[in-house]
């Protein structure tokens, strides 16, 4: 029999999923264009690059880190991909190279973070110099993409589903598997939960930090490929403020900003929620400037729940459940 304690715990743990469902129901009543297969595909396609990168961000934040550089890395990979294709390089070479650039850029972040520098500042520097490099390489110009294989990655379909959606789903499943089922995922949570405890238990905490940033860099590169392909355009202005969407999705999804607790399902739901809110407000004809205000307020609310309510409710549940313990 569920008591008040269990209901409160359920509400805090699954609040985002409940909010997502309530929003979908409410919007379906308000707009007859909302609850359609086409609209859902649209939202999923918009959310796809965010989901891809946010899976990496979930690992980074699970180690109590942060990566602000992903949006700028998207721009660098975007102009690089378009530029190399324009030079006539084969797409089969350009894509692995793009992923490698992302991996290395992420590993550089990770290298400085494992030295003990604050991740916030290290990746803020990355945000600046990576976008700078994107402008240097492109001289500020956007480059059109004509390669059909690449464009298929952004606009193609397999059956009913668009390729970006399938890529995002594959990344999410892989991320869930690694985080929940492997030693590496457990060690990531241990490093974020209490680093010194992880270290004395023999976990190589520095190596884990480098790896999570490298993964995030590679996934940002994959996100960049999808974005570039969808727009058929490599632009140094790609991915501006994208890092905030990615971090918002991760935090909305319940990944603790203090590290140690994270779920991929939450992150995916967070990315979908953000995009469903935007989509719903757009369909209702709300002024897009207000949509941005609403998105910011939702993030604020999510952090409030993430940091304060979570802790309070879990604590309260623990104390009121004390009599269950045999002591």
């Amino acid at each position, binding site marked *: 029999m569920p008591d008040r304690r269990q209901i409160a715990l359920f509400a805090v743990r699954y609040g985002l999923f409940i909010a997502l469902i309530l929003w979908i129901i409410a919007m379906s009543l308000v707009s007859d264009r909302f609850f359609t297969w086409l609209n859902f595909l649209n939202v999923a396609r918009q959310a796809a690059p965010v989901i891809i990168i946010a899976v990496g961000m979930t690992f980074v934040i699970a180690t109590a880190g942060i990566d602000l550089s992903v949006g700028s890395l998207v721009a660098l990979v975007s102009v690089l991909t378009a530029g190399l294709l324009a030079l006539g390089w084969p797409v089969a070479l350009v894509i692995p190279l793009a992923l490698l650039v992302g991996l290395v850029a992420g590993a550089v972040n990770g290298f400085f973070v494992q030295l003990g520098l604050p991740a916030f500042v290290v990746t803020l520097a990355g945000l600046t110099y990576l976008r700078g490099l994107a402008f240097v390489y492109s001289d500020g110009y956007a480059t059109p993409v004509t390669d059909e294989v690449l464009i298929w990655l952004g606009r193609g379909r397999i059956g009913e589903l668009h390729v970006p959606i399938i890529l995002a789903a594959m990344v999410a499943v892989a991320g869930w598997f690694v985080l929940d089922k492997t030693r590496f995922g457990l060690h990531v949570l*241990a490093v974020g*939960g209490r680093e010194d405890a992880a270290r004395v238990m023999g976990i190589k905490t520095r190596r884990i930090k480098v790896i999570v940033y490298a993964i995030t860099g590679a996934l940002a590169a994959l996100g960049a490929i999808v974005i570039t392909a969808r727009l058929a355009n490599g632009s140094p202005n790609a991915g501006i403020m994208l890092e905030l969407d990615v971090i918002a999705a991760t935090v909305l999804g319940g990944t603790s900003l203090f590290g140690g607790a994270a779920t991929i399902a939450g992150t995916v739901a967070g990315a979908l929620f953000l995009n469903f809110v935007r989509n719903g407000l757009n369909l209702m004809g709300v002024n897009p400037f207000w949509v941005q205000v609403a998105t910011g307020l939702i993030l604020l609310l999510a952090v409030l729940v993430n940091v304060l309510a979570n802790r309070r409710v879990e604590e309260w549940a*623990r104390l009121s459940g004390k009599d269950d313990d045999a002591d």
Partner: protein
Amino acid sequence: MQGIAKRFGGVVALRGVDLQVGHGEVLGLVGDNAAGKSTLMKILSGAYQPDRGTIRIDGRNVTFAGPQEARALGLEMVYQDFALVPELSVTQNIFLGREITKRRLGVSTLDQREMAKRARELFERLGIRIPPVTTPVRALSGGQQQAVAIARATGFDCRVVIMDEPTANLGASAIDKVRETITRLKAAGITVILISHRLEDVFAVGDRFVVMKHGRVVAERAVADTHADEIVAMIVAGIDPRSRTSGDQSVAPQPGP
């Protein structure tokens, strides 16, 4: 341990320490702050590497590059702050760093069922009742967390358990449980090294005192052969009143590096 020395930059933490413990012995390692007892135990548990000196187990020289290698040789440590990850479950903490995995389609995954089963068996064997092994450690009381830390240290064929201030933050009934546990470990032939400010713990369950001061061992006493005032006097003064020579050495000025 023989001739163990360690320095951190200009600070000399250990100046050549000899320490011997027997099977099933409970040794109380005492001394004031900065006496070097924690550094010595961190060397024995593999967290630090000594600058000089050797460690022998059953007459065999051993070295270890990290805590995992020390654990593999049966040297375990229960840290003062328990070194548990609050967000992880009891089982995940117990197996942290030595998880049981299974291979499926060439991919190595955590065997969560097996680990949960073994964790439950472990607590049954130790006679400790705690909430379900899937509970996050954060939701446990201080005494229960201590029990998890001790279970983790003693559950895997250990030979030496080092306990750093195991009773520092516990209530009276939890302290009794820790003492019971130490007695049971001793009966099983496991060596226990107890770092404690609370001399009564050592008097209650210990065999021998070793007193450290300024990075060296200044005195040893069998528990039956001493009393609290004498131990306190030796901790403060760093001199063994029964042996002039060792006392002279410990207060002699050290030659510069």
